[in-house]
């Protein structure tokens, strides 16, 4: 039961915000660009100086070291950034006990953990000559592979060069990178904005799965009204520096 509670969080452009998300609750935030949605998420993740306090699962943010807080409250920025050359540089280890994606695949019949993901919408350079047999390195953990599979990638994605990723691939891999870190709450900033419909569905399904399996509260900035309606959850909008229910 890890709820997220904002108390008097005040950024440069917003008036102080009080907001409470129950464990596993989904809350959408929308508003015109420049209204401070991203700044709000950055404030919750403690990335910018600001006033206010945030509680996760009854633990005050100020009582935790900042890196630990950010690991537990995972922010997915609208634009992803990559510091290493290869995708694998950004996935240091297994998901471990933190979370194992449940064994059904989005957009397919149940139980098919196999090939149904590698459809036409998969990236063009993803399916190449089988490299598995000459791969002498230790195999990536299976839960990480499941996560990749969910998002439409094969295991070879780990060897890809970051510079060659498309915008959509970056966005999906950034989501994988964040979930692989096992955060207890999710702050999503336009998590699916650059994805085509099949991939958007995949991303939505995996976020929904994570939310229900881990009981993680999700604060989601989305400018897509269809998405906000489709996924349900509470809908809030920023107007005049205030966070109010969407009409």
């Amino acid at each position, binding site marked *: 039961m890890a709820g997220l509670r904002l108390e008097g969080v005040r950024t440069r452009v917003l008036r102080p915000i009080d907001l409470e998300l129950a464990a596993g609750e989904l809350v959408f935030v929308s508003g015109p660009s420049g209204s401070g949605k991203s700044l709000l998420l950055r404030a919750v*993740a*403690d*990335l*910018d*100086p600001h006033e206010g306090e945030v509680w996760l699962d009854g633990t005050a943010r100020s009582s935790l*070291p*900042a*890196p*630990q807080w*950010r*690991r537990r409250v*995972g*922010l997915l*920025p609208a*634009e*992803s*950034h*990559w*510091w290493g050359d290869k995708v694998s540089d950004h996935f240091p280890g297994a998901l471990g006990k933190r979370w194992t994606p449940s064994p059904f695949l989005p957009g397919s019949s149940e139980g098919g953990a196999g090939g149904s993901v590698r459809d036409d919408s998969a990236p063009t350079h993803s399916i190449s000559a089988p490299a598995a047999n000459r791969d002498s390195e230790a195999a990536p953990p299976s839960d990480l592979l499941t996560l990749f599979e969910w998002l439409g990638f094969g295991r070879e994605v780990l060897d890809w060069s970051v510079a060659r990723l498309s915008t959509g691939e970056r966005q999906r891999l950034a989501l994988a*990178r*964040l979930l692989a*870190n096992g955060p207890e709450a999710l702050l999503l900033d336009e998590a699916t904005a650059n994805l085509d419909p099949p991939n958007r569905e995949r991303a939505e399904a995996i976020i929904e799965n994570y939310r229900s399996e881990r009981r993680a509260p999700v604060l989601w900035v989305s400018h897509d009204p269809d998405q906000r309606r489709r996924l349900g959850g509470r809908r809030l909008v920023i107007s005049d520096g205030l966070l109010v229910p969407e009409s």
Partner: protein
Amino acid sequence: MSLIILSPWDLALASSLVLLLAFMSWRLHLGVERRVLIAAARSTVQLTLLGLVLKVLFTQTSLPLIGLLALVMLLVAGWEVMARQERRYRGVWGMGIGTLSMFLSSFSVTLLALFVIIGVEPWYQPQYLIPLLGMLLGNTMSGIAIALDNLTRNAWEARGRIEARLLLGADWDDAIADIRRDALRSGLIPIVNAMATAGIVSLPGMMTGQILAGSPPMEAAKYQLMIMFLISAGTGLGSVAAVWIGSRRLFDDRERLRLDRLVPART
């Protein structure tokens, strides 16, 4: 062999070459003639003054006066480090980081040389102290200026990458580790290159000076070697200190990247 005294006329002859350079710059529209002339004028005034000051100091050997001169040299070097930054730290840090690092490295290495290596009696004998300190300050100043400039510029450009690592739970140390490494390396490269080519491509200034003044070449080479080792230690130490303090200053107590602590230099 004894020193041939230069007359003002000799110097005027040499300075005409600088005037020629400025003229060339003007004709070829290089746009640096003003800076060439100002720099030449500055060095004329500064070196003449230093000569006069040292003349007095050498006859007095007074510790407070020598300390005062060393302080002035340090502060000017600190100012110079700040002036070479494209993005400098706000407030007292702008000059403070460079000055403190140079103080830590140059002064400690100079004292080590005076006490342990050369064994000057008294240790503040200005004939040794001032030139040693000057050479160390001059070189650490370049190294620190390059390293700090590299650090702040790259951190500015890599904001997204640094924050991406912070967001995944890295502490500030990890998030900026590669940028810090690059900055340190860039600060050390000039002195490493200088050591590698010394004696083959370039005849270092100090050795040249000693030979001109009539020292046996082998003695001059030994002094030059010692100086090179001291300079590389001083530059390394100073760059490490500056980059460490500087990179820490880019983050606050909640380990947020605070690029607002930098201001672009007024140009």
